[in-house]
């Protein structure tokens, strides 16, 4: 019996990482938060200079939608009893923002669109994979609701 009690925890400890392949709830909340923050700040940046009405409309929509997804993820985290740290830009998102701020005029518009395509492809991956394999049910549901919104943004970006 003693041996069994000893053997099981060891076996579980070894196999546990193989199960936990989706992002952890904390990782998901941190990455979603950084993504939203980048979306909002980059859209604010392009709105300061753009003369293109299509980009203006898109950027305003991004601020609205990503402010909502930040709030939805925060509420779902509370339901899942996770106390996330306030959203913070991860190094890759901070770098994109710095690059965008360094551009002016039409070059900033084009940089914004190129960055948006890349950032949304990653956002889709983030929310889709968490909706599929996440471990906190409320966050999983929030992720599943964000997926079609991100997909809609990607479809819009394909015309830009």
């Amino acid at each position, binding site marked *: 019996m003693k041996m069994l009690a000893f053997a099981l925890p060891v076996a579980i400890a070894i196999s546990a990482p193989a199960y936990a392949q989706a992002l952890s709830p904390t990782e998901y909340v941190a990455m979603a938060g950084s993504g939203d923050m980048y979306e909002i700040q980059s859209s604010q940046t392009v709105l300061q200079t753009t003369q293109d009405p299509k980009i203006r409309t898109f950027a305003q929509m991004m601020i609205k939608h990503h402010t909502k997804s930040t709030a939805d993820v925060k509420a779902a985290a509370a339901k899942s009893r996770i106390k996330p740290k306030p959203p913070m830009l991860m190094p890759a998102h901070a770098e994109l923002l710095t690059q965008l701020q360094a551009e002016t005029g039409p*070059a900033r518009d084009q940089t914004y669109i190129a960055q948006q395509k890349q950032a949304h492809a990653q956002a889709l991956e983030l929310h889709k994979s968490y909706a599929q394999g996440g471990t906190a049910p409320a966050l999983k549901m929030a992720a599943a609701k964000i997926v079609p919104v991100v997909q809609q943004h990607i479809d819009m970006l394909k015309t830009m």
Partner: protein
Amino acid sequence: MKSRLLLGMALLLGTSAAASAQSAMSPNAPPPPPAPVAVTPPPQAAADMQAVLDAHKALGAKPIETLSPAKARLQPSATDAARRVMRERGMSTAPDPAVTTKDVAYGADPQQFARIYTPAAVVGSGAQLPVVVYYHGGGWVIADVNVYDPTPRLLAKQLNAIVVSVEYRHAPEFKFPSQHEDAAAAYRWVLANAASWGGNPAKIALAGESAGGNLAVATAIYARDNGLTAPLHVLSVYPIANSAMQLPSKVDSANAKPLNTPMLKWFGHYYARTAADQMDPRVNLVGANLAGLPATTIINAQIDPLRSDGETLAQAMKKARVDVDQKTFPGVTHEFFGMGKVVRGAYDAELYAVAQLKKAFAR
């Protein structure tokens, strides 16, 4: 006692086997168990290449071979690292305005679309431009047309050609040969539609990097076998082309960055349905019938586990009497191509590639 222990173990094994079977096609599918780590350090990269590798680290890139596909796809790319170096040096990271792009679907899946790069000066001019069909890299699992923007943009501008950068369905959600099927379907689609974009479908070339370098050659084989218009030239940059794991570069560059030998195994773990897929001639190009293929240029990096793939593919092509030109660039790593603004070796390789394609289109 013994039987209860065995039962416990059996239950445990049973659960984990079920979990992995269920998730084989999920982006959350666990990575393969870690392989023994080779101790050989890779050769030292040139200072300008090393600056990009350092920037990649600064952006927080984690070792791909330890991650699930979903997590791997969220990592910063080598392109992100090169842009960081550009920004640090006061260079613009904006897309070159000499080229415009539009995204057009070629299939029903959201990933079956292509980004068409057109030299801005000729939009609406009625000129019939040469066409390059380009496939991006990422081991058929990670990365996309966004990550691989520099090369098609550069080729469109330097060749004054329309470059069609093909997105395709990724593994493990869609395993081999979905990527090869999409590559072939996109080639057919370009032949049928290039004229409507101002392209000349008789003046066509194939190009690609890494897994996409494989797709370029595999699609040339497909065109030959299906009686399609043959490309005038194939540009294959560090292709996946030889599944043997004991090739010199897979040993001497086992610990290289941003591609190492464990990542090659990681890609295979996700794209292959069974081990046999990695010996399929579409993957293991050195084992394919290469006779009658168009003139081919193969570009390799010295510090890259795929270097020997390209070198052995060139040997196999020569043996099959294909007009092949292969160069290995020193001091650079996988993903260096397209970094010509900050890496000298990449600038040289880009000049070489452009000259080869210009020559092919001038004929």
